[in-house]
């Protein structure tokens, strides 16, 4: 469960988030759309405890981020267009490092399980620098789910992915969502984003300008609705 109240973020003189109020119950799949520079990634970074809010409160699974940061971090997984992987280490060494940092029990078995889930079990001992972009992104998915997080944040995860990697990512996301994990996805990909979600947000100029359930929307209308909301907020 994510609850944010009056969230603002100012970097230098620029106000990126302008009072975001958001409540995402456990097990929901929320997709966020918005133009470049709207504050989507900043919102994700703030909710995922990568960066601190300038003002406002955030509760993750009922815990205040200011008082329980390490406990909350244990429950969060992040997939970005950056992989957070060390090029000179092998797939197993990368996962072993993150597994130790997250105190994952039965780490060896867990590493094999997540690598199997993303189809990389045969590349276990190969350095990441020899991987293709798609393979690296699949390994990044394995890294993000290694500690079995209750909340998964995804920032443009489809960037640079081949169709096979997109299929793997979507199947991981469906499996996690079926397990009642909360998923918070940022994407420009209307097709994938709408298909996967059960709630859609539009963020423009640091504010949520639309918040609707998937069943209230038709897939063909999404793009027009988005364009109307973006132009209306301009």
């Amino acid at each position, binding site marked *: 469960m994510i609850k944010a109240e009056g969230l603002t973020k100012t970097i230098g003189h620029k106000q990126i988030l302008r009072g975001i109020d958001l409540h995402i119950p456990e097990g929901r799949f929320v997709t966020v759309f918005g133009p470049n520079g709207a504050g989507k990634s900043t919102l994700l970074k703030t909710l995922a405890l990568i960066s601190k809010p300038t003002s406002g409160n955030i509760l993750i699974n009922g815990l205040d981020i200011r008082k329980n940061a390490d406990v909350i971090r244990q429950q969060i997984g*992040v997939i970005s267009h950056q992989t*957070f992987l060390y090029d*000179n280490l092998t797939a197993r060494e990368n996962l072993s490092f*993150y597994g*130790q*940092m997250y105190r994952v029990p039965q780490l060896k078995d867990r590493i094999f399980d997540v690598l199997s889930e993303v189809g990389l079990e045969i590349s276990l001992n190969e350095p990441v620098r020899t991987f293709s972009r798609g393979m690296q992104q699949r390994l990044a998915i394995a890294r993000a789910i290694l500690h079995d997080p209750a909340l998964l944040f995804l920032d443009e995860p489809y960037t640079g992915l081949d169709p096979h990697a997109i299929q793997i990512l979507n199947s991981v996301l469906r499996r996690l969502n079926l397990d009642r994990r909360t998923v918070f996805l940022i994407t420009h990909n209307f097709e994938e984003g709408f298909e996967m979600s059960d709630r859609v947000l539009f963020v423009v100029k640091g504010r949520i300008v639309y918040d609707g359930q998937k069943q209230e929307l038709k897939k063909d209308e999404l793009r027009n609705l988005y364009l109307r909301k973006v132009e209306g907020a301009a």
Partner: protein
Amino acid sequence: MNTLNGIRAIIWKDLASEFRTKELLSSMLIFAVLTIIVFVFAFDPTKDIVRQVFPGMVWVCFLFAGILGLNRSFVSEKTNDCITGLILCPVDRSVIYFGKMTANLIYISIVEIVTLPLFAVLFNYRIPLKAVLPLVLVIFLGSLGFIAVGTFLSALSANARSSEILLPVILFPIMVPVILGAVQASAAVLAMAPAAEWISWIKILAAFDAIFLAIPLVLFEYILEV
């Protein structure tokens, strides 16, 4: 226990990554050897003046080679945005600092172990056997202070556009007590001066180290936020 495991994991990750490519260590070692060669040409090893400037030369070599390692310490974490991966880990921010600091301390120690005997041979400088243990203590405390401040500032400067230039500019002024203490203590130890002469410098080095190992406990999370 979790703290120690986190620190150990970061040290292992840094060393495994470095020993696979040896990019950093080889450039630090090559730089250190070149510095020694420049000093050999600059100062006639047969002259008495060498005895006076020897501790200074040794520390100039250690510090300049060390800067190369510190510059890469956090800049390397920017590849694939690994620094965000570290920030996301459920550990106290100081765990990241102490892990990176210990790895840097290991690199500079390797450089020191290789270059100090080389200095002694090329300058025909006989280090008295009784001076070895105190000298090791001085080098350890001096290096610890240098790396403690350097790692902290390396995280700060990593986000700057010209971090390689910025780091020495902000590091060396803060390092003055360490440079002074390390050079003076090394000179006294090598000259086999009475312990009272170098103990006070050791105390200064130890106090500096304690302060700069404590500061990141409080401030390092703000440095990562920059």
